[in-house]
């Protein structure tokens, strides 16, 4: 039985009709509603999930498509507050001009090499 799961995000998705990315949603639900330890690795383009102060409100026909103010930052913070460790790969951040101070508080920056260590520390993996 998997007790320690690493969730790997590789691609960002914004502004679908789910509040934030459904995968982030699903991961947050796992953190809050199950006894399984869930941790997150943001790599490739998904490092943008970790950037704070994103505004995701969009109107169509004068109506907000998200009735609630929802941003990746809120979900990331929720996961951290519920015990998840979130890491972002520094090389992928650098390529996209993202600095450590741009990230949501509590996200740890690790190197590509160091991310391999996570494969040893977890017993199951989900890659979105």
């Amino acid at each position, binding site marked *: 039985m998997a007790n320690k799961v690493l969730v790997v995000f590789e691609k960002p*998705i*914004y502004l*679908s*009709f789910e*509040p934030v990315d459904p995968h982030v*949603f699903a991961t947050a639900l796992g953190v809050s509603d199950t006894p399984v330890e869930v941790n997150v690795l943001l790599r490739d383009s998904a490092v943008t999930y970790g950037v704070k102060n994103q505004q995701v409100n969009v109107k169509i*026909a004068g109506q907000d*498509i998200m009735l609630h103010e929802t941003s990746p930052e809120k*979900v990331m913070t*929720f996961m951290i507050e519920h015990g998840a460790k979130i890491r972002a790969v520094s090389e992928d951040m650098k390529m996209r001009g993202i600095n450590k101070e741009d990230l949501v508080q509590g996200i740890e920056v690790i190197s590509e090499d160091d991310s391999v260590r996570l494969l040893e520390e977890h017993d199951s993996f989900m890659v979105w």
Partner: protein
Amino acid sequence: MATETTPSSAPAKVKRVAIVLATGSYQREAPTTVLRLVEKLLQRGVDVNVWAFEEAVTLTNKDQIDHNEPGSLQKVLGEKHPNIGRFIDQMIRAGLHGAKLDWVSCILCVQERGVEKHQMGGSIVGTLGDLWKFVKAADRVICIPTYR
């Protein structure tokens, strides 16, 4: 050295745009982007024809509901979120009083997914013949495939 010059010519005004859309609403942001684009085009007086196929035919399912979010996440996500059908309906109705929006769902795709009888008013179940007419009549064609 002589400089080659080409006579300047203003681009022809775009009057009709065809959008070919293949993605569903809860997988990625493409339908949201399409609706934002449609709204701007209609406001500019441009007629828009959307050809929806593959998973995009579920966008006009009339039986979508605004479901509640899980209780443990409501502080983060809110109590519920709206469905995309509501916004498509508004776009089609907006087109009734200005530039026009036609939204056609592929008949084969709606049948495969069991949503033929669930298509909302205003959307049209059509064939590849409609797609051909849309493309032929369009000044610009935008195709958004299913890739992720």
